């Protein structure tokens, strides 16, 4: 049990790895600001979340990472050491941060002397109005259709806009094993065979019915608003990550082609199968609500027996519905934000069996085999094994 050793004379910490690991992967993993918070070991022991320094002890400690198994004191009331501390927290409404009196500053991170108030508001318009009226200093996550108003504020000297790239991506997800009973709780009018999207040709047809160019240019609004809001992409390893593969070097990347989509739908054997489904979008995301609407119209044009409507659900509800084997959402819009800048963070979550998305969306070799989708099962197994 000498995985991590330290030397106070040389002021160094040494990690002893059990097997060779790419340096870039190791350094980015330990630098992960979302998952590498250092907490006092003695305090963890006091609240019942200590680590027993044995192999079995570490395995047991990993159980705290499972949803539902969190140590609630560590989850909700940790001892922190940063510049601010929480004075008031009303979930979903606001949090008030005040300076931590025990934090006196370190190089590059000054001790603050101000109070930060973060408000979660009910909709983008409320957020915009708080900012425009001067009641808020910063506003985030406004949909792109607010851009003309923001540019106007900027021209009047009432706002500054700074643009920068992100290491995040967003996509529509197919659930290949839809919970029938769960779907009815979203709306009694909804119906779809649970394995509708387990059919490869159906997913392919839907992918070819999405107008990617119109989405970026006019719905997200790159062309409409003359601003580079987003880029199209294909494959989860996006620009900015090592081992990025440009779409031009990949085969079968879908483009908008309704004629071909209809051919695929007929080939699937599911043409004329009546479905009525919601396309679920996080509440407040007016841009992707419009995108879902565009897609739904195209799908109906492709096959008049497909009825789809965009539906808002709170982000937290969508996450809550992503239960393996019980997910009622046939199609939903979410994404991935880098935990660390290495492909494994993305590929494992979006592709691997048991991953963040494949698990609640029905992706398992066994399930595909049970449906007789032998080819798909083999393809998926070759990737995920």
């Amino acid at each position: 049990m000498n995985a991590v050793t330290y030397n106070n004379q040389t002021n160094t910490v040494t990690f002893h790895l059990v097997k060779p690991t790419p340096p870039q992967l190791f350094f980015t993993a330990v630098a992960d600001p979302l998952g590498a918070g250092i907490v006092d070991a003695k305090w963890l022991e006091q609240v019942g979340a200590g680590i027993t320094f044995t192999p079995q002890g570490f395995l047991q400690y990993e159980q705290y990472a499972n949803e539902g198994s969190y140590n609630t004191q560590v989850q909700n009331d940790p001892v922190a050491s940063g510049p601010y501390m929480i004075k008031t927290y009303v979930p979903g409404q606001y949090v008030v941060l005040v300076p931590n009196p025990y934090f006196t500053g370190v190089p590059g991170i000054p001790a603050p002397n101000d109070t930060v108030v973060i408000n979660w508001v009910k909709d983008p318009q409320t957020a915009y109005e708080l900012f425009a009226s001067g009641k808020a200093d910063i506003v985030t996550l406004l949909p792109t259709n607010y851009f003309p108003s923001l540019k106007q504020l900027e021209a009047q000297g009432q706002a500054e806009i700074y643009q920068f790239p992100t290491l995040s991506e967003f996509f529509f997800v197919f659930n290949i094993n839809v919970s029938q009973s769960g779907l009815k709780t979203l709306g009694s009018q909804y119906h779809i065979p649970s394995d509708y999207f387990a059919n490869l040709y159906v997913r392919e047809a839907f992918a070819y019915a999405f107008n990617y160019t119109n989405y970026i240019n006019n719905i997200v609004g790159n062309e409409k608003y003359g601003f580079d809001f987003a880029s199209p992409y294909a494959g989860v390893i996006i620009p900015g990550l090592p081992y990025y593969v440009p779409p031009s070097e990949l085969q079968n990347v879908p483009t908008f082609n309704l004629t071909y989509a209809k051919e695929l739908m007929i080939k699937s054997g599911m043409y004329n199968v009546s479905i009525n489904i919601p396309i679920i979008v996080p509440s407040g995301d007016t841009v992707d609500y419009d995108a879902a609407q565009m897609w739904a119209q195209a799908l109906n044009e492709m096959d008049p027996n497909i009825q789809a409507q965009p539906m808002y659900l709170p982000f937290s509800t969508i996450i809550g519905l992503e239960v393996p084997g019980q997910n009622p959402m046939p199609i939903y819009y979410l994404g991935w934000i880098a935990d660390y800048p290495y492909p494994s963070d993305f590929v494992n979550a979006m592709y691997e069996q048991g991953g963040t998305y494949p698990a609640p969306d029905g992706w398992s070799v066994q399930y595909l085999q049970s449906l007789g989708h032998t080819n798909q099962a083999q393809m998926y197994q070759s990737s995920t094994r």
Partner: protein
Amino acid sequence: MIQEADTTTNSTLAAMYYKQAEQIAIDLYMYVYAQQPNAFWVVKPYMTGYHGQISYEENPMIGGAGDSLYYWWVKG
């Protein structure tokens, strides 16, 4: 394949495995890839970054660049 890509120390092999994994996922049409967003901070003109460096708030490792660090915002 994914696990091999994640763990190999040979960058040529890693590139090959990751590309194959991407190709299989696309061939399976697991997702409809929509957008890789750029982000933008919208702040009042009196808000600046620490040491005048708003770029501190553009670190893609902080929520993919969608989150900010409060102690690096300066008001006034």
